């Protein structure tokens, strides 16, 4: 075990994959000489050289398209999108090209690209640099998508993403890059795609979260003596661990989902619909989704913090759910806004 920051864990995963597989290449804006704007590729250029670690122009459609062609012809490119919003100008290459090559070649071609993108609010970047945008990818069959929640998750999921023969989008909460944790490196530290991970035991409610919200859900669970919450880090958003989540919720009888994204059409909507349908009659309370409001991410510090679910708010929402058996209103209803 090594103690490291999440950005260092990303760099460690990239380096270990590059050591094991000469076909792994890394490119993106400022990833080589500068080591990445968030230092997620620090040291790679020095160790692996300029053929395998490359700075690109500000040209997302170009370099993601290049990743698609390189992957179809045998490399394992890892492309970095500095802020997830920049994927908007290149989305075709991920959802319509990479995600369809295997299908459109009757299995003859694979397209093992890894697209890493920083996501999320909390650092004062404003509404064009703070979204999560996972639902850009979740309606596009052929892709996989994971969301990192800390250093071990970063190391383990990224290594699996690079090894996977399919296109995988890796969403990296920017606010977590500086957070430290113990990391098991090497083969034992690799986390499989498609499996959720229970990060806390509990009996009264199952809290499913992902990314930066895992820490929030854990803190909320620790804060209550009235109920005990099981906390699950979903880890892989596509394809998500249906069996794992359903069996967990079947045991506790209550499902709460904590998401760092607007209420409408979040990843949790799909989970709520699926679990609600599968466990109809077995649930002891309606499914509760705790999300951000349907507004662009605000800039001002206090508002930005309020925009995202925080531990006190999550605890309070679960308190109300257990006390009343009904889904409580989100905070913005108290401000006179519609739910």
């Amino acid at each position, binding site marked *: 075990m090594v103690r490291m920051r999440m950005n260092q864990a990303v760099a460690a995963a990239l380096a270990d994959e590059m050591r094991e597989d000469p076909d792994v290449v890394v490119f993106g804006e400022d990833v080589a000489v500068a080591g990445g704007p968030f230092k997620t590729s620090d040291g790679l250029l020095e160790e692996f050289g300029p053929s395998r670690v490359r700075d690109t122009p500000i040209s997302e459609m*170009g370099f993601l398209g290049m990743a698609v062609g390189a992957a179809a012809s045998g490399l394992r490119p890892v492309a970095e999108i500095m802020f997830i919003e920049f994927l908007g100008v290149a989305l075709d290459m991920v959802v319509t090209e990479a995600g369809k090559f295997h299908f459109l070649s009757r299995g003859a071609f694979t397209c093992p690209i890894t697209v890493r993108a920083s996501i999320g609010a909390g650092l004062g970047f404003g509404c064009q640099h703070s979204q999560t945008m996972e639902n850009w990818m979740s309606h596009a069959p052929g892709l996989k998508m994971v969301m990192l929640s800390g250093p071990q998750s970063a190391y383990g999921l990224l290594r699996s993403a690079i090894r996977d023969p399919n296109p995988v989008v890796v969403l990296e909460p920017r606010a977590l890059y500086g957070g430290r944790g113990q990391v098991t490196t090497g083969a034992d530290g690799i986390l499989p795609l498609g499996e959720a991970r229970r990060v806390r035991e509990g009996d009264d409610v199952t809290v499913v979260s992902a990314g930066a919200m895992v820490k929030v859900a854990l803190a909320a669970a620790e804060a209550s003596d009235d109920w005990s919450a099981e906390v699950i880090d979903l880890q892989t958003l596509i394809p998500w661990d249906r069996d794992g989540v359903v069996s967990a919720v079947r045991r506790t009888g209550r499902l709460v989902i904590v998401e760092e994204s607007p209420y409408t059409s979040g990843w949790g909507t799909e989970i709520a619909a699926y679990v609600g349908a599968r466990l109809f009659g077995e649930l002891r309370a309606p499914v509760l989704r705790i999300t951000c409001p349907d507004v662009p991410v605000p800039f001002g510090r206090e508002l930005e913090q309020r925009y995202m679910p925080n531990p006190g708010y999550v605890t309070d929402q679960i308190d109300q759910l257990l006390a009343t058996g009904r889904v409580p209103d989100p905070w913005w209803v108290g401000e006179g806004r519609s739910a």
Partner: protein
Amino acid sequence: MGDSDRMERRRAVAADRVARYERMVEIRAFEDRVQGLFSEGRVHGTTHTAQGQEAVAVGIAAAVQTTDLVTCTYRGHGIGLALGMTPEVILGEIMGRDIGCVGGIAGSMHLCDRELGLLPTFAIIGAGIPVAAGAALTAQVRGTDDAAIGVFGDGAANIGAFHEGLNLAAIWNLPVVFICENNQYGEYSRIDLTTPIEDLADRAASYGIPGIIVDGQDPDQTFEAVSAALAVARSGGGPTLLEMKTYRYAGHSRADKAEYRPEGEFERWYERDPINTFRARLESEGLLAPGDAEAIDERVAARLEAALQAVEESPPATVDAMFGNIYAPV
């Protein structure tokens, strides 16, 4: 036909100009037949045919190796046939049958043949340009002498992927040849209504790479130009942009009767029809004897008839094909 037949078709085009002529005849007859099948209501969906552009297709196919990857557009039947795909696997795909190159789940716009080096053809304008650069990146990183070919239309020269792909290929000196099939129309719009310059090859100067205008109606010139650009790419000389001036005889897609064409335009281009002019050249060189061209026409017609029969005997696309290749197995 099996794999070896497809490779044999490819070798024939690479080795022999008369075989190139026959393939051009086959492409023309195939596209005419496809249009006929659509208008008879025997095929659903849409299609984009490439009559008039046969010399571009065979010139490319004759010059590339099977280890080079080619990206191509949704107007891809001709290039697919030229590269060696058989009429039955393309027609089968167009008609949604199991015999199709992708099992009938993809359709006319999406042809693919890995052994022949054809990536799934692109139905998004311009998308294949950076993807071709990516295939060239693999050759560069691995140190092989492979190259890549990115084929696109004149309409693609106005989309961002063109600029981004050429710029990246240029700064990294990638072994790729960009081939613009300038057939004078982007969808329903004539090139001069959408583009402020006459020669798209001029745009190469922005990236510091050679931009060469090629007579796209002459299969000898298209072959020579692609061969020369590939030689430059393989020897570390970087990318080239070839603009092949050609002409789309049909409308954009099956629904388009191309009534927007200026009067006399088609006739002017048809005077330099690539098949007629190449036949005359081969006859004057003594490579086609009297009666040879007619024999080729008959052979092609019989081949297409057999292909149509094979397709009609093939079952429709299967549920297995629909679900079978969403994810590659881990």
